[in-house]
């Protein structure tokens, strides 16, 4: 009775969909978060009668044969890369990326991490770091006596001092882009790691080679669309019920069989 196990694969697929949706909804207000979408594909097929099998002595063949599917499996959970809307925060180290690209940070392990969360902060020594305290690449240090700072669209960070009219260039933020940004590995904390699937990081100046530009005083909102997620949730819930119904039906058919004398 394969119908039981097939319907079970259907139920676990819908359950995984609900898990993806709940993670999206939980991250509705996470800076720079992109919604995920679970993709499914059918499993292998059981060949009962292969198409092209000779069906008579005259050499006629079965045009389509009989194939029965064995259920569903998750094929991928993909990041729906989309620009989130920008919220004005007024923070002088809040930078939103408009367009493609990720800020590069150095993780405690020494590895490079990538993030779209531009809520940068100043460490005790003036170094520009992320909210978790990881330094941004390239290293930029803001002097203690800087009156204010400004970051332009190309990522150039200028510091203004009380005793000078002209601002001083402290460094330039760079962005990294990937051939396949969907192939990055999410490690939480709004951070991603490079993988074999993503390709190597192409680091460049914002605004060049297809990279986005930076906007000071803004943060990128989560790109989760609550309405879409809730409609998907309803679909997933009904899908789950339908598969449960198949299990009940298959069970009743089995019961009828066992009750035969």
């Amino acid at each position: 009775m394969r119908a039981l196990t097939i319907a079970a694969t259907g139920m676990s697929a819908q359950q995984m969909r609900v898990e993806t949706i709940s993670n999206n909804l939980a991250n509705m207000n996470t800076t720079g978060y992109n919604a995920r979408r679970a993709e499914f594909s059918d499993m292998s097929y059981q060949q009962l009668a292969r198409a092209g099998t000779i069906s008579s002595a005259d050499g006629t063949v079965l045009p389509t044969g009989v194939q029965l599917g064995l259920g569903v499996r998750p094929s991928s959970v993909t990041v729906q890369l989309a620009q989130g809307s920008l919220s004005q925060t007024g923070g002088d180290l809040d930078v939103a990326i408009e367009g493609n690209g990720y800020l590069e940070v150095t993780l405690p392990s020494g590895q490079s991490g990538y993030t779209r969360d531009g809520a940068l902060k100043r460490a005790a020594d003036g170094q520009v770091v992320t909210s978790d305290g990881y330094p941004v690449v390239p290293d930029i240090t803001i002097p203690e006596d800087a009156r204010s700072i400004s970051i332009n669209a190309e990522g150039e960070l200028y510091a203004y001092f009380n005793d000078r009219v002209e601002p001083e260039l402290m460094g330039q933020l760079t962005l990294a882009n990937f051939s396949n940004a969907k192939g990055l590995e999410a490690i939480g904390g709004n951070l991603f790691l490079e993988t074999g699937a993503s390709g190597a990081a192409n680091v460049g100046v914002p605004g060049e080679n297809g990279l986005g530009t930076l906007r000071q005083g803004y943060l990128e909102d989560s790109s989760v669309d609550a309405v879409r997620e809730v409609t998907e949730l309803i679909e997933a819930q009904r899908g789950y019920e339908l598969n449960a119904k198949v299990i009940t039906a298959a069970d009743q058919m089995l019961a009828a069989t066992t009750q035969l004398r």
Partner: protein
Amino acid sequence: MESSGYVTLTRQTGLMKELQAVANNLANISTTGFRKEGVIFAEHIERLGNGEASLSMATASVRNTDSRQGPLTQTGGTFDFAIEGEGFFLIDTPSGERLTRAGVFTPNAEGELVTMSGYQVLDNGGAPIFIPPDAEAISLAADGTMSADGLPIAQIGLYQPVDPTGLTREDGVRFASEAGVEPIEGASILQGFVEDSNVDPVSEIARMIEVQRSYELGQTFLDKEDERIRSVLQTLGR
């Protein structure tokens, strides 16, 4: 003489297969580009000797793939493509070229457009499609022409099997066409949409109830048959 039980048995095993098809359809209700499958029963006639009437049994002989268009869901993804109308995308797998309607693609590390299983998507000339990594915006015209920042880079090919009945299903919502494929015209491709499964839950549940009740009917028949033989044995054995 006692073949009525066997005839019912062929029907019962067939119904089991049909329930399996229904279960598979419902399990794939959220599978992008999935095509509903059905089982068609045919009469299988067994000749009996000595002027007896022939015996007709039911066998599941043909598979039926519903080629109706599934509903389109907007995802907004740059590389999410849905076909409106007939046709399939052509992808290159290790076991040969395969057709699919699941248009969820992504560029890989080398910049080639691939499916989520990592197989290259082919253009209208049968060549892989390369996406320039520094492209800012990729757009797709209805005829499948992809352009990066306004410059055309490739045209996604749409194909159809030479023999539509000769399609074999494979896992990963792929179809193999033994007779080969040919380009198709007249369909359009939409960017930012994916085609959902074309399984209609209402008709599947109706079919499931029908299968279930037919199965019960068969079981009742077998029960009655059993009773009849029992009473024959009791009467004659007295």
